């Protein structure tokens, strides 16, 4: 089918206004396999609408076009010791694509965030303003370039995580923040699940400003590439960031608080480890279906148990035990039901990666209660009444 490479906002307005039927919308296409499978349709590609138009380090803000790669932005910010604090994961390799090729527009549209989510916020919290073209072909803007802004509804939140179903962004203003000088990770080895969650709760309830907390079962530990983790024991990882002295002091305090057998990763190794966690690298190489399950932190162990009960399945945890990444050999209705039952008391489970036919049969996104589903349908109809933009990407009946 036709691939329409968008070159400007005017071009996008024209493309949407003149569309006679549904269009697929993508940034650089690395997460094409995320969401309900799209039928073959003309595709609006934003890859060509790329580039950083302004970067003001002292104002902690940068303006970018949606097709800019996250990798390029990361490099640019690093030159000024800044970063995207929400650590947008690079899911390209998980979907069999080249690393470092995903776009910022895609990262925001999928509302992806890495291990620092519980402390620094998600993609939704870092989009300050944007310009976009709605499904009606109307070019509009919302938000601004400053952090404190309540002028009108927060449409930035609506755009983040809407998977291109409401409007297509043409420019984004994003928050930049100082990057930590040093990173260290405390690895507690061999804790069982109960002890691991206790340790994470304790660490995250302490004043030591833990900025990453995860649990890796023994079976997956080798997949994290660290030699020290290959000994076949569970790993409970806690990350500290800040100035050198501060990190060292807090590490001492944290070790004293938690005790037990432990190891430490310093800055470079820490960065590698947490990138693997965020990018779901342990599952990038295999062909199992991958679920992303968000629950209240203390519900993590229940999710772990459910996943364990599925033959051949594995899960590791991020966000202090509140986010599970699970790989399941057969993402059939039965395992989906088991996982979705696990989040019925609060949370959501997203089938991130699976063959098309499975994502067509098992709703990839957590089904909503009828009242919310109806509300979301009304929102979709308001922004895209003709059903032009990515229809069916999130739910069969809505957008």
């Amino acid at each position, binding site marked *: 089918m036709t691939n329409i490479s968008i070159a400007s906002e005017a071009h996008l307005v024209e493309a949407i206004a003149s569309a006679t039927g549904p269009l697929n919308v993508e940034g650089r296409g690395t997460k094409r396999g995320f969401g309900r499978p799209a039928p073959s349709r003309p595709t609006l590609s934003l890859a060509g609408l790329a580039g950083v138009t302004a970067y*003001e380090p*002292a*104002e*902690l803000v940068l303006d970018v076009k949606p097709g800019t790669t996250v990798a390029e932005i990361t490099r640019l910010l690093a030159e000024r*010791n*800044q970063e995207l604090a929400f650590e947008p994961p690079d899911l390209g390799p998980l979907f069999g694509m080249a690393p470092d090729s995903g776009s910022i527009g895609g990262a925001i549209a999928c509302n992806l*965030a890495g291990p620092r989510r519980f402390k620094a*916020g998600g993609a*939704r*919290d870092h989009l300050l303003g944007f310009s976009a073209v709605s499904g009606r072909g*109307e070019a*509009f*803007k*919302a938000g*601004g*370039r*400053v*952090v*404190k*802004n*309540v*002028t*009108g*509804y*927060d449409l930035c*939140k*609506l755009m*983040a*995580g809407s998977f291109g179903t*409401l409007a297509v962004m043409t420019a984004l203003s994003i928050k930049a*923040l*100082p990057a930590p000088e040093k990173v260290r990770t405390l690895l507690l080895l061999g804790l069982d699940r109960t002890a691991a969650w206790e340790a994470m709760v304790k660490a*995250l*309830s*302490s*004043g*030591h*400003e833990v900025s990453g907390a995860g649990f890796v079962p023994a079976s997956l530990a080798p997949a994290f590439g660290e030699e020290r983790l290959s000994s076949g024991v569970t790993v409970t990882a806690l990350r500290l960031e800040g*100035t050198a*002295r*501060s990190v060292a*002091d807090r590490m001492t305090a944290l070790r004293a608080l938690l005790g037990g057998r432990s190891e430490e990763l310093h800055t470079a190794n820490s960065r590698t480890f947490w990138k693997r966690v965020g990018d779901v690298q342990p599952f990038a190489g295999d062909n199992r279906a991958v679920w992303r399950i*968000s629950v*209240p*932190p203390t519900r993590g162990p229940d999710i772990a148990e459910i996943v364990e009960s599925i033959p051949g399945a594995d899960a590791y945890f991020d*966000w202090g035990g509140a986010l599970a990444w699970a790989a399941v050999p057969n993402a059939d209705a039965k395992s989906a039901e088991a996982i979705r039952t696990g989040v019925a008391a*609060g949370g*959501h489970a997203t089938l991130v990666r699976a063959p098309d036919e499975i994502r067509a049969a098992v709703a990839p*996104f*957590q089904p*909503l*209660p009828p*009242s*919310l589903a109806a*509300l*979301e349908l009304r*929102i979709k109809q*308001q*922004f895209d009444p003709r059903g032009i933009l990515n229809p069916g990407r*999130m739910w069969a009946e809505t957008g």
Partner: protein
Amino acid sequence: MTLCMPAADPAVMVRRASIAEALRGLVPPANVITEEETLRAYDSDGLTAYRQPPMIVVLPETTAQVSAILKYCAREGIKVVPRGSGTGLSGGALPLADGITLGLGKFKRILEIDYPNRCIRAQPGVTNLALTQAVQHAGFYYAPDPSSQIACSIGGNVAENSGGVHCLKYGVTSNNILGLEAVLIDGTVVTIGGKHLDAGGYDLLGVMTGSEGLLAVITEVTVRILPKPTAAKALLLGFPSNEAAGICVSAVIAGGIIPAGMEMMDRPAIHAVENFVHAGYPLDVEAILIVELDGPPSEVEELIARVAALAREAGACYCRISANEAERLAFWSGRKNAFPAAGRISPDYYCMDGTIPRGALAKVLARIREMETRFGLSVANVFHAGDGNLHPLILYDANKPGELARAEAFGAEILKLCVEVGGVLTGEHGVGVEKRDLMPAMFNDIDLAQQQRLKCAFDPEGLLNPGKVFPTLHRCAELGRMHVHGGKTAFAGLPRF
């Protein structure tokens, strides 16, 4: 009042008695207020420039009662204005002559404190400060801390997406809530989010936060709580000029330091506040900055020294570091009482809330000084310097004919200036009625139409808090047919109310 509100519907107003009677069937009868004198007490929120007694006040006690009231109002076509503690500064809870004010003052219970999951589930009428007080003995707190935190409600915080002095580092309300229970205009009770992060589907949690009571009525909030930093210290810095203080602010941020809070006050504000709080502010300086650093003790010490050095370079002539917790709190108590303390130097004040790029601080302050002469009114400046959120307090006397109108014109000019230098109209107080008619300074008709479309998805008949936020009132059906032509809407010239 120079403000135009939607015309009251006489057909609704003549039914006042029967509407009150119907409401008395839905809530305990004593919770329906109809007497003229008593309605006056509800005629404004924290913005007193605009007043209008509501047709009726109703004070429900349960979510089921809220649902029943909204269902009734939707069926009968009656407008509803939700109200929390009535401390808002943009008139978001300004009543309507033909509308019901739905007060949530009786929703005062903390429903659950969940330490392992680090959250509190509370009813919307619980005050912001009460959340922190409920968990501080266990070493936790709720981070956003608007200056009115002693009195403002968490439901109101969500409606306005409130900030506070500590949001520079810890974020505003929308970054700190996990879940909501809310009632839609048709009476449907919806639960969004919970104790987990990133509710599935569109980010309705994010959209509802800051929606100023136009989308739904919030009946329960789940907030995140954070462990208290192990150490916190504040610097009280004095500067010979606003410019010097502005330079210091930029230098700190550019130096890679994100303080827990960085607040500025100019001379008139310092004097007004010191008179009430006796915080020990220096009185012979033009501006003060309060800079708080928190975190591990060694980091705090290190950063305090770095900020002090940057301040000296910027020309600071006074520097005091809080010696203990009492002194740190004293520094803040002055700042937190700054708005109402202005009541000691002026009978009325009009509080602005624009945000600007930090780099434009000195320039904007200088322009405001020029305007003072032009408008013949003085200004006390109090603001969140760290994130460029200004709060110029325009001092006026409502008893003097013409002063309010001048204050309004002055305020409008300040806010337009904020937009001109790359900022926004409101950083944390909300648009309400106050900045409603200035929205076109920032957004064109098409931009505003998108926001109204979101409103239409929630409240197609426009019964929830009409007259707020949007400068022009479109019917949802009209918006649906709206024709865009070369970036302009067909009815761009539609009269504003």
